[in-house]
């Protein structure tokens, strides 16, 4: 597995747009399918947004580190925050039948990525989200399939 990039992000909402641009460019360089590219953009945006809003409670000067790793045709994304460790059992998608604003980020991440794992940073304060995505998925965001999951 090769590390492609390590990105330091400040926990400010105005940093999300340049982040999405960066992810699109990186995915293009790796010859990622258009479908996988948009899934990556969506998942990384939602994950960083969750860190800003929930882990850092909207504090604007905290650090987020994003690592991009590649192994053959699979991209591994690691997103580190240095907030208090969270109870991983509490990170889950909510009931979508209950229509209300918010709480959709975890659901979207789970739908568009191939695998999603939350961990604590060993020996340090903080959390890491590891997400994997095949670079060449052609039906990566096939909505009809999502309804059956």
């Amino acid at each position, binding site marked *: 597995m090769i590390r492609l990039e390590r990105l330091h992000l400040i926990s400010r909402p105005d940093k999300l747009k340049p982040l999405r641009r960066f992810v699109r460019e990186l995915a293009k360089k790796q010859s990622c399918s258009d479908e996988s590219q948009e899934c990556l953009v969506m998942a990384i945006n939602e994950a960083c*947004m969750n860190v800003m809003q929930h882990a850092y409670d909207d504090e604007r000067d905290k650090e987020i580190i994003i690592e991009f790793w590649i192994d053959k045709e699979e991209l591994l994304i690691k997103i580190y925050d240095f907030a208090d460790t969270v109870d991983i059992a509490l990170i889950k998608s909510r009931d979508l039948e209950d229509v209300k*604003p918010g709480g*959709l980020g975890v659901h*979207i991440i789970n739908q*568009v990525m191939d695998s999603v794992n939350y961990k604590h940073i060993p020996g340090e304060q903080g959390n890491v989200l590891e997400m994997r995505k095949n670079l060449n998925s052609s039906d990566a965001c096939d909505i009809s399939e999502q309804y059956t999951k």
Partner: protein
Amino acid sequence: MKYPVVQHLSNSVISLSGEIDLNESPNVRKQILGQLQNGSSLLIDLSAVEYIDSSGVASLVEGLQTARSKKLDFALVGVSDSAMQVLQLSRLDTVFTIYESLAGIE
């Protein structure tokens, strides 16, 4: 950013554009709720939206709920492919009334 508002029949139409993310969604929410405070039914034109995340979708859901509480209509128009994908992933595409264009609204 101040989004343009026009009248269509008895509805106000807000035309959103660009990327509606955590940085922009508070502004979108404010403009949607502001229009509903005026007492007019609301159409949200999403045809020029290039990207919308779950915070932007949350602003739309809050608009829908506020409209319902005031017995006003609230619908989406010309939903771009990108926005539709997020609505479908969130299973909200069947919750909102969605029109292809303003021409289809009576």
